[in-house]
């Protein structure tokens, strides 16, 4: 099972919409996909109409290794399951801080279900904490949505600074622009200049679009309620890029 995580220190940058749409597209392509909504706000869970509740909460997951397996819920889409959010996920750091090797706990929890899925996408909460360290340890790649604004880009520099101090050589950093509004000069300037500075920056930008906002109303991925829309096409391009960079092992060239 390969693990991708949408991550940014900053909130409101499009992590959840990215996680939901990529998970949907992966499942549509035949990957048995699991989405873990680690954000206690539970927006990804809401998008799939699943109740944001896990029996026993985060403490239950720590106590019983079978709890995670039992928490998995099928979505209405073939090949796509979700581990719903639970409000107790806000206590992740507190619950796991006294564990032996605290940064490896997330991976340990995943062990019983790892064989059932080809791909896990984690939708993480905006912070830099023990929970994020667990994600960095478990994931193969971090998908980092960046709004083309100074503040958003600054948080990416902070993250790079963090990885200079605590390197994670197994982890691919895949930043991409999200909520890009081509009518704004600043967005155009940043999108035009930044990719030259960052290695691994993905070519696809996700536009700022009404369709994406409507996901909360439709409670479904864009590809389901607005197939072939501009937003759907952008997510498809993004998914193809990510798949090529992280998942296409079977191609030897």
């Amino acid at each position, binding site marked *: 099972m390969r693990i991708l995580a949408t991550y940014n220190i900053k909130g409101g940058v499009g992590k959840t919409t990215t996680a939901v749409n990529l998970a949907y597209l992966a499942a549509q*392509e*035949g*990957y048995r996909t699991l989405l873990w909504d680690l954000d206690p706000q539970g927006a990804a869970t809401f998008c*799939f109409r699943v109740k944001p509740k896990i029996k026993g909460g985060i403490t239950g997951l720590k106590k019983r290794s079978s709890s995670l397996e039992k*928490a998995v819920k099928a979505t209405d889409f073939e*090949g796509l399951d979700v581990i719903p959010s639970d409000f107790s996920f806000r206590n992740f750091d507190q619950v796991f801080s006294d564990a032996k090797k605290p940064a490896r706990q997330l991976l340990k929890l995943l062990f019983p279900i790892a064989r059932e899925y080809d791909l896990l996408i984690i939708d993480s909460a905006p912070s830099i904490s023990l929970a994020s360290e667990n994600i960095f340890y478990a994931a193969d790649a971090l998908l980092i949505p960046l709004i083309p604004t100074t503040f958003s880009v600054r948080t990416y520099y902070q993250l790079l600074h963090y990885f200079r101090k605590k390197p994670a050589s197994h982890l691919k950093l895949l930043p991409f622009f999200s909520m890009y509004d081509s009518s704004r000069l600043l967005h155009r300037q940043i999108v035009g200049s930044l990719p030259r500075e960052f290695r691994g920056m993905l070519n696809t930008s996700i536009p700022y679009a009404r369709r994406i906002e409507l996901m909360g109303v439709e409670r479904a991925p864009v590809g389901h309620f607005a197939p072939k829309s501009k937003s759907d096409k952008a997510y498809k391009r993004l998914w193809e890029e990510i798949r090529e960079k992280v998942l296409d092992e079977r191609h*030897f*060239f």
Partner: protein
Amino acid sequence: MPADQLIYQLPATLAPKEFKSWLEDDHVFEFEHSKDFTRIYLDTFDWRLFRSGSVLEIILEKGHYLLTWRKLGTGVILDQRTMKSLPRFASEFIAPGLQHRMRDVIGRRSLMPQISLKSDTRKLYLLDGEEKQQLRLEIRMDRVVVPNSTGYLMLPTFVYLFPYRGYRGAYQKILQRITASGGLLPAQKDPLTEAMDYLQIEPEDYNNRPEFELNPDREAIDGLKEVLEAFRVIMEKNIQGACQAEDPEYLHDFLIAARRTQCLLNRYPDVFPEEALKLIKQDFEWAEQFASPIRDLDIYLSLFDEFASRLDQAHRASLRPLYEYLRDQKAAKQWQMRTALESTRYKRLMENWKRFLDHKQALQDLPEAAGRPIREVAGIRIADLYREILSLGRELDEESSAEALVALHQTSKKLGYHLELFHSLFPKKKIAWLVEAQLSLQENLNSFHDLNLQHDALLKYRQKMQQEQRTMPVWLETMDLLVEDRESECRKARLEFPERFKKLTRKKMRKQVRSLLEDRGTRGRGTA
């Protein structure tokens, strides 16, 4: 997913519409009606999925293929997912997990549509308060498409349950309702089996390596003809697939049969009438020369994942020109083989061959050993081949040429064929030693032979590359790395050889082989 019965039969007295209304009395369902779409059951030509107790069905839905791999009979889902294109080979299942599981069952065989159904399906999705689906129930009214006709055969109406993970309660509630209150009974037969019965399809017992239980006292000519006839049938079954390159297994099985046929024809001059078979033998050799190189190329092409794993990222990309070169070579050779195997010469060969096998010759018109018991005649050949292997193997040392090892490989293969075909003629406890030792040696020699072939092919390709102007230095570097890797693997195989060969030369083994002949009262040709 629960290991329960998930397919039920709707009683003939209950109309699907009534059943649907009855279900909706108590629960909220979302309803979807799809009419006249095609449902296809995929399997390999030799029904490997069916034989393994599973069913693979596929439908085209909303621009995607929905694939359901389920257990035969119960309907328990093994895998269900959407796919962009219709998979033909295990390697085309994009997700690695499914790819491996499918490969375990179908090997390198291609999937093909075996049975088509025209379906009228009513889907009912059980919803919760958030309008989230908790279970899917399908009422399927399927008609079997009769091949090469416009006719259909109506199947019984089946009700399929698709429980959703994490919603076991909903599943149990519906199950209870349809079985206890509704009186639905589990399907007596899987819908696929039902369709097969309607079409009178019976998956034949295909095996590319048939087991023979020959009567040891049978006349050698008849025993050998029985074996050869089985291989003739295998060749006939695979020729079309091999010519059309549907999957590499057709050619593989064709060659298995062709090589064993040639081996037997050449090894029994004292059983078969030489003059009558002269032309047939020549024609078999002629046909094999077209087929064998393609098999080698199939093997090289299947090795690319291994090649890639031996290289770093920088060199991996350089495999592409080699891959394309081999693929083009295969295409050219495939065309040559197809021309040959579809020619009048090949057709005439197979007609003559069948005529020969069908015709019962008088013993006085045949060579002397034809009338002797098959056990005795086969035993002598086994002993001869064993002795030949010992003599070739003893001459080998670290300095011996690759050709010498390859010659031993060929002889060992022939002994392997004999043991595979005739082991049942001898007491198991006596022949088992030899079978085990020969297999162990064969495995080692096969490795050496394959690696050596790959090494030579890579070198040849490197030379060709060097002569071309557009060759990039990194391509040559990649070839050097692979050649070196093959050389090192060959060395490893050589190092293992003495140990494996020793097993065959043990005094106890020689005694066992000798006793095989003595038991049958066959003396005079000697053994080791």
